């Protein structure tokens, strides 16, 4: 085991920055795609304002398929699409599409579940007051489920931390990439340990931040 002084700290710094970029961008796009998807899943499901069995069944099927493919395989399967979208399948840009494709369906399900927790009576009251579907989503569903949605973003971000590390396998860059190339392939166990510690700290920060926000918005 080599000493901490021999470690390429600059490389670790860059890898951490890459991981943070991947995490930030993939979380952003996951929310942008997963939130509307979750809302549509909720609204079209049985007994809800826009009940549409065909739409729900189709979306639900697609979500289930994407969620059942292990991330490491999904990552490789979507390489052609990744190249089409961002021009490369390598590095930070190349890792974003697979991360989002894996996380968005997961997040959408969490959103759907959170929305189910909203009191049906409140939705009914909004309908009775002449709210449009759009107003029901913006003024009732999203504000009322805010704590649940924040918890969902937290869980998704934590999951994405481990996904970003995995994307190192196909040259995705970041801490995972570093851990595999130095820690595993070159037997520099210290590098591996350091990256794991950084990831652990990252997860801790995300979780406590999320919990704090949930508590802040909890009104019940």
């Amino acid at each position, binding site marked *: 085991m080599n000493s901490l002084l021999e470690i390429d700290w600059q490389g670790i710094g860059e890898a951490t920055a890459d991981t943070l970029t991947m995490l930030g961008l993939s979380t952003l796009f996951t929310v942008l795609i997963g939130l509307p998807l979750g809302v549509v899943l909720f609204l079209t499901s049985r007994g809800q304002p826009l009940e549409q069995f065909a739409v729900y069944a189709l979306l639900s099927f697609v979500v289930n398929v994407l969620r059942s493919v292990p991330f490491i395989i999904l990552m490789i399967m979507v390489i052609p699409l990744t190249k089409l979208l961002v021009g490369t399948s390598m590095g930070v840009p190349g890792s974003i599409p697979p991360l989002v494709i894996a996380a968005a369906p997961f997040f959408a399900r969490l959103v759907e579940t959170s929305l189910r927790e909203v009191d049906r009576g*409140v939705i009914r009251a909004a*309908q009775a*007051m*002449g709210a449009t579907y759009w107003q029901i989503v913006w003024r009732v569903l999203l504000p009322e489920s805010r704590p649940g949605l924040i918890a969902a973003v937290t869980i998704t971000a934590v999951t994405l931390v481990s996904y970003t590390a995995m994307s190192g396998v196909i040259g995705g860059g970041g801490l995972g990439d570093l851990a595999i190339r130095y820690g595993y392939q070159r037997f520099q166990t210290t590098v591996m340990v350091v990256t794991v510690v950084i990831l652990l700290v990252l997860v801790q920060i995300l979780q406590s931040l999320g919990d704090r926000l949930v508590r802040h918005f909890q*009104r019940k």
Partner: protein
Amino acid sequence: MHALRNVDLSIQKGEIFGIIGHSGAGKSTLLQMINMLEKPSSGEVIVDGVDMTRLGSGKLQEMRRSIGMIFQHFNLLSSTTVEDNIAFPLRLAKQPRDAIARRVEELLGLVGLSGHGRKYPSQLSGGQKQRVGIARALATNPKVLLCDEATSALDPQTTNAILSLLLDINRKLGITIVLITHEMHVIRSICDRVAVIDGGEIVEMGPVADVFLKPQHRTTREFVAQVTDNPDDGTDALRSANAAGRLRIRVTFIGEQTYEPVLYETMRETSVPFVILQGTVSRLKDTPYGQLVLELQGENGGAEQAIDKLRSRGLDVEVIRNE
């Protein structure tokens, strides 16, 4: 299987109309048809001259803004303050910010919640939550207020406070109130007319005094029994009194007569001995009423004569026959 059948109902402008029924009788469905939260499979629902069943979603949403609604479980937004809850329908209608602020203040005063605007619903009692519900329902100046078991989750004291608030609103604003309940007490306290619903059909309907004092249908009698002490046929005195020359009658007083010595005067004139077997003096909304079950022990047609006299004084007298 239909939740409701053969419903023919017309509610007058400015009245408080009660619909009473057991749970599952269809009263909630009937109420929610007024603002199309439930859509009828056939028939018409006309509110203020507009057939609600023919409206497209845009027109329906517009129409719903002139129909306020309050609920058993209040259905307030838990994530926003009392103020924001009351402002909610005004924001839906895209009213200007300063007009909303003024209206919210006014409504808080109307329902007796001034100073509670910044609280969250979880910080309020049940009665206060329903007051917020009422303020929210009135925000857009609706012509009709629908009350879906609005007092069923409240204790008796709070129920009375909410009922008097509703009555007050009905008088001050002239708003038509349609309420559903399973409590006869609610009907008796504030309603002008009542419909009794059973098995998806209206089995009895009319002014509260008529339905309450002379219930025809079995279900109606059950509801009336909720607020009267003893059912007529339950007393031993009624069962045993069956001798010849004795007549049992039910006398009903309504209005000012309740407080006049009509009975005393009549009985003195005819000198018929009588026994009071059962009696109630109470109020229906603002109308005092009394109902007595008497046994007249007059001989040689004295009892019949007394009955005629009571009737000629405008009392309702019903002779109770033995089975």
